[in-house]
């Protein structure tokens, strides 16, 4: 697959200034306050002076042109905006987390809209503004978008748990960006989660946008998994069709820790998910599953980097994209096995289903191995629905459109296994319904 010429290409000379006014406009709206995060914010500002908005000339952004994003002048959203109340929230809640959800409006924790009564006291949720700076920005990779998020530190949430505690109800975080009609609005969700030794949690991060304006959510979630801890992380990105979404999920895994991610996304006109994972101690396990559903002219880019840095770690990654109409999906997955990481067992697969002749996918799985005694595999496939399979369903009386929908769902089904919310598979099926 070859790279396309970006829609509005950026010349060599103005690459340095590309997006500069976009960034300046946002930075000018961030108030100067003296609190525990002031130093981190200043560092991030300094980094931003060096980091520009990337252009498709940069390898990591080769297939994703940010010109449509930087064309907007975003207003930095504050807390308490929009018509978010118990009644308007109702349709977005799930029975499995009826008493274990937290609402974050424009990146700010709204306790009065949340119900955490089903969670044990061993689990603590607090606004990041009340937290000490420790742990923040120690896991996330510094790039222009994480730095932009850090330059605005103050909202967001910190989640802490006591050692050996196993929390049963899934914790549902509803990140809602409110963009009123005619406005371009930026929210910067930030989450810091630490799981201490032998604790376990199921975390659902759910990105939504409300309103008919243009929302841009620029999210960073940092996760530290200490010895023997287990996190089942579900990420749902279902923002509106006008939205922009850039998200970094950064995970550092200690000894015997277990991280499972199920990332489901079908929202936004443009989205980019950066996954930064590191196994820093031996015998950690990472299980990544992704499902991207695109139609219309949506563009979605998943960039993952998994670093095996200690012996006897294992990882499984399966990412699937279903692309219809003129939409475009990108998957770039890197697995790095460092010299110390002997006996690593890693497997990565990217499977893509194109539903229309103009749909497009760019896939780049790659392995970089510096240890000599490891088992690593990777692969990618791009295909269409099989005529034989469609015929089988039609021969049973199932009309063509429904047959295609059932088979498309069948392609996705593997990613949805074990998902702790019964409604999520139906939401995926709805997305795949004709029309």
């Amino acid at each position, binding site marked *: 697959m070859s790279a396309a010429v970006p829609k509005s290409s950026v010349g060599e000379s103005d690459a340095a200034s590309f997006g500069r006014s976009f960034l300046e406009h946002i930075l000018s709206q961030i108030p100067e306050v003296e609190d525990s995060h002031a130093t981190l914010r200043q560092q991030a500002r300094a980094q931003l002076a060096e980091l520009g908005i990337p252009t498709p000339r940069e390898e990591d952004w080769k297939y994703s042109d940010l010109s449509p994003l930087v064309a907007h002048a975003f207003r930095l959203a504050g807390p308490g905006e929009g018509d978010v109340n118990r009644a308007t929230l109702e349709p977005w809640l799930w029975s499995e987390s009826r008493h274990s959800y937290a609402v974050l409006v424009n990146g700010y924790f709204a306790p009065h809209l949340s119900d955490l009564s089903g969670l044990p006291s061993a689990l603590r949720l607090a606004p990041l503004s009340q937290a000490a700076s420790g742990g923040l920005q120690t896991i996330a990779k510094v790039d222009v978008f994480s730095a932009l998020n850090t330059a605005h530190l103050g909202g967001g949430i910190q989640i802490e748990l006591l050692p050996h505690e196993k929390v049963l109800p899934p914790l549902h975080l509803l990140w809602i960006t409110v963009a009123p009609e005619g406005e371009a609005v930026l929210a910067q969700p930030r989450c810091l989660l630490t799981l201490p030794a032998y604790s376990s949690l199921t975390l659902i991060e759910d990105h939504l946008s409300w309103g008919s304006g243009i929302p841009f959510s620029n999210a960073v979630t940092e996760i530290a998994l200490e010895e023997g801890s287990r996190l089942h992380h579900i990420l749902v990105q279902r923002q509106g069709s006008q939205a922009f979404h850039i998200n970094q999920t950064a995970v550092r895994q200690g000894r015997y820790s277990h991280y499972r991610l199920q990332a489901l996304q079908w929202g936004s006109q443009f989205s980019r998910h950066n996954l930064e994972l590191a196994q820093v101690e031996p015998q950690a396990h990472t299980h990544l599953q992704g499902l991207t559903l695109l139609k219309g002219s949506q563009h979605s880019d998943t960039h993952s980097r998994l670093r095996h840095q200690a012996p006897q770690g294992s990882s499984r990654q399966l990412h699937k994209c279903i692309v219809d109409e003129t939409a475009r999906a990108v998957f770039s997955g890197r697995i790095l096995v460092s010299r110390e990481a002997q006996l690593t067992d890693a497997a990565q697969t990217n499977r893509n289903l194109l539903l229309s002749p103009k749909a497009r996918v760019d896939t780049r799985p790659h392995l970089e191995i510096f240890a000599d005694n490891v088992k690593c595999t990777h692969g990618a496939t791009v295909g269409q629905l099989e*005529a034989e399979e469609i015929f*089988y369903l039609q*021969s049973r*009386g*199932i009309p063509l459109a*429904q047959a295609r929908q*059932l088979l498309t769902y*069948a392609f*996705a089904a*593997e990613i949805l296994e074990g998902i702790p919310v019964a409604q999520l598979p139906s939401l995926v099926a709805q997305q795949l319904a004709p029309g």
Partner: protein
Amino acid sequence: MIRENSPVILSVRDLTAEIDGTPILKGVNLEVRAGEIHAIMGPNGSGKSTFSKILAGHPDYRVTGGEILYLGKDLLAMEPEERAWAGIFLAFQYPIEIPGVSNLDFLRAAYNARQKYRDQPEMDPLEFDDFVRQKLELVKMDPAFLERPVNEGFSGGEKKRNEILQMAVLEPTLAILDETDSGLDIDALRIVAQGINQLAGPEKAILLITHYQRLLEYVTPDYVHVMEGGRIVLSGDKTLALELEQRGYDWLREEVG
């Protein structure tokens, strides 16, 4: 069961067809009446499987001549799903796996699609559950199979039994079974044959496509046809199957070809 003046269900005249420009069928003639069981036998590559797929409307094949009348209507003008609604059923030689879709939901979707087309009431999940459990008896299938994804992880024999279950739910007027006996052990073969026998009836017709005579020990055909080189070259009663079993197919090529 051969009856005088029984209505014609399927009438095939001078049918020719090709795939990717290669002719496969070179003039097939066949008439099937209500109540009858026909077996089409023949060596590999004779066109018998192609013939069954064309009857069900497989998109890969192009009909280049002749006609097919089903209950007096032009079958070739109908989409595959319309043929199913009108009562045609093809049991596949290699049934497709559909992960994530339960057997029960799939069967109900198929059943209700046909009911809707016929302006008959659709069944809700509870009604359908009762209905399908009676049908399970026929193929001696464990009800747990209803909750499993369609054919996923099924053994060869389970897949074939699942085809007969679908047939039992859809109650076709013309059932075409493409090599349904292949890959079955003797117990599975008996179960499948029993299912077929129970689904036969005076208003229905069955077309068995098979390479071997084995299935015909359990399902007695009224007619046996031999296909060779894209044509039906010989027709007879059930004794023809036994003769083929003893003599193989090679002599046919010498005598007919």
